[in-house]
């Protein structure tokens, strides 16, 4: 039985409530659509004294992430949220957060990138920051957005991890949708999430030098150490999911499958459109087709073992991307999928579809088309097919 108070709540507010439940110390943020409801709610909570935190209304996203670097480095529990252009403006500071091992948590309301200007949702912003060294998870609905936000603090702040975490929520499709969810109980969250004990905070009583520069003799080793630690974080990520299930009920996993057990064909999705895709799976199952679905929840570090296992019986994979990789052959998730499969025995055939750009709807019918068409072209396709484009 899932625990918490059942409410109807917008995804963004559910994230803000999770930040409050985590007793966050510092929120530094710059407003950007479709993320605004998250930080507006937090500002309100701070203004009303519901959350004892410092809210820093910075002058840009670059400074938002930079202020987070400072507050996290002194050991304060730190949160921010952004989207699209804001995430790109933060870009270099994202690397600093990860490479300095600062456990910042950030919600990203996924948004398309200019030009042309678009405030609507897709995954272009995410894909541009996928190799910044942040742990990244995708929420599929409001409940996941809520749960994964305080879960993120637990993982990020674990002394075995100390990497920042991005919780991705599809802009508008999820950030602005009101749905029923369980608002978790404060006592349960306190049981799940211990206080932040950053091991080397900046403090005069025990001075440390943080962010010293790395000459060639040392840079390579620091980067190798970082990557080893990053890959190792998966152990804590899994432990976090396990503990979460014990306290709250739902079991989260890096890869989630739907109707996949005997499926020959798997549709691979990430984010909120996964739910629409599931409708297509249901329809096709009713028609006797052996199709299933694979949803990627943990995007970084990519859950290679779980992924390979989940697709081991499939003959065809159909990958749906909400971003373009200019000059590449397929969508960025599809590249990842192909790379994960290369050299595997019984390698499934893969087809790449791209759609839902800049907030364009993707219907269950279109997912049905992708599956049917994908089964035909997988293995023969030389580049992606764009869905829902007016020729």
């Amino acid at each position, binding site marked *: 039985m899932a625990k918490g108070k059942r409410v109807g709540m917008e995804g963004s507010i559910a994230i803000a409530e999770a930040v409050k439940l985590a007793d966050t110390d510092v929120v530094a943020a710059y407003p950007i659509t479709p993320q605004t409801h998250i930080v507006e709610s937090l500002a309100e909570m701070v203004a009303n004294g519901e959350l*004892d935190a*410092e809210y*820093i209304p*910075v*002058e840009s996203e670059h400074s938002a992430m930079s*202020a987070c670097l400072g507050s996290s480095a002194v*050991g304060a529990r730190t949160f921010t949220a952004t989207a699209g252009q804001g995430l790109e403006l933060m870009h270099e500071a994202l690397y600093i957060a990860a490479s300095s091992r600062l456990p910042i948590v950030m919600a990203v309301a996924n948004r398309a990138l200019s030009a042309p200007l678009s405030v609507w949702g897709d995954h272009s912003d995410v894909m541009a920051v996928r190799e910044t060294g942040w742990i990244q998870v995708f929420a599929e609905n409001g409940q996941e957005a809520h749960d994964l936000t305080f879960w993120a603090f637990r993982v990020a702040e674990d002394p075995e991890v100390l990497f920042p975490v991005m919780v991705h929520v599809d802009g508008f499709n999820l950030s602005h949708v009101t749905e029923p969810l369980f608002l978790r109980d404060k006592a349960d969250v306190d049981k799940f999430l211990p206080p932040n004990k950053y091991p080397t905070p900046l*403090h005069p009583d025990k001075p440390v030098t943080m*962010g*010293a520069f790395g000459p060639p003799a040392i840079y390579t080793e620091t980067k190798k150490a970082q990557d080893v630690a990053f890959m190792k974080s998966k152990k804590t990520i899994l432990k976090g999911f396990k503990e979460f299930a014990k306290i709250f009920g739902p079991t989260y996993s890096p890869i989630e499958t739907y109707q996949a057990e005997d499926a020959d064909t798997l549709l691979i999705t990430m984010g909120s459109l996964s739910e629409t895709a599931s409708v297509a799976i249901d329809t096709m199952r009713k028609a006797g087709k052996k199709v299933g679905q694979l949803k990627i929840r943990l995007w970084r570090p990519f859950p290679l073992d779980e992924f390979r296992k989940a697709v081991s019986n499939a003959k065809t994979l159909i990958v749906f991307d909400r971003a373009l990789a200019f000059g590449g052959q397929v969508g960025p998730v599809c590249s990842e999928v192909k790379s994960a499969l290369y050299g595997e025995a019984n390698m499934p055939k893969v087809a790449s579809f791209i759609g839902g750009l800049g907030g364009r709807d993707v219907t269950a019918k279109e997912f049905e088309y992708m599956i049917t068409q994908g089964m035909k072209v997988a293995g023969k396709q030389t580049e992606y097919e764009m869905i829902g484009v007016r020729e």
Partner: protein
Amino acid sequence: MTQATVKIGKREITTDELFASGHRGCIGCGEMLAVRLTMKALGRDVVISNATGCIEIVSSPLPTTSWEVPWIHTLFENTAAVASGVESGLKVMMRKGRIPQKQIHSIAIAGDGATSDIGFQALSGALERGHDFVYICFDNEAYMNTGIQRSSSTPYGASTTTAPVGKKSIGQTTQKKNMPEIAVAHGIPYVATACASYPFDLMEKVKKAADVKGPAYVHVFSVCDTGWRIPTNQSVAVGRMAVQSGVFPLYEVENGKYKLNIDPTLKPVADYLKKQGRFRHLSDAEIQKIQERVTSEYAKLKEKVARSQAPSA
């Protein structure tokens, strides 16, 4: 902990060295001298956020550090924002009882490029938000550690590698951006200029800046013998000449009120310029032009000082 001190004239100075020797600063570096004095004035209860630049490069090559106090370097343009986070983080954790109550100063230090150019926005934001922190700009008037490229703090007529002297150019053709005045325009409680050639003045101002509640800005004129093309033993002398000629007046602005700390009979600017290789190409006419500007700027400053002293109506 009682600190050992040494008496210099009537003043006492700590023997504590919080910016340790062994750093990789150039011989005779005016900036390193200023940093060392700054740290003596600040003491141990600080967290330093340091921009990319000479100071960071010479003081922190892994696995060594010159910093005896907590210190963080992140990027070139975000020092004031990082210091904002440090200040806010410490404040909230003390309020919540997560760490013991203690006065800890959040200090941002950066060069002129990180201050007047790339970090300008973050600095303006932090000053406007009113964080209780000190921003100290160590101004050596160019991007020195990348090879003497011009910044918006490079003075008119100086030759740099990106504003070089040539057949059609006298070097930098724009006037030095007036950062202290821009800081004053933010309406913050304390702004000061300082120079390591006047060590006690510098230390007193840094101390005052730290004790002020709210944002404080200190602009430290930092002679760069490498970039300014002067002998390595002339840094202190050239800094003094900048002050004595009115090129870099030492003043402070407390809650909008101006005060000149040293008001010498101004010496000719030519004496200051001719000491330095970066100005060696200037004609007498150009030097005259610079003299006129320095005279007029100094007069404007004195007017502000006079207005500040006049009894309000």
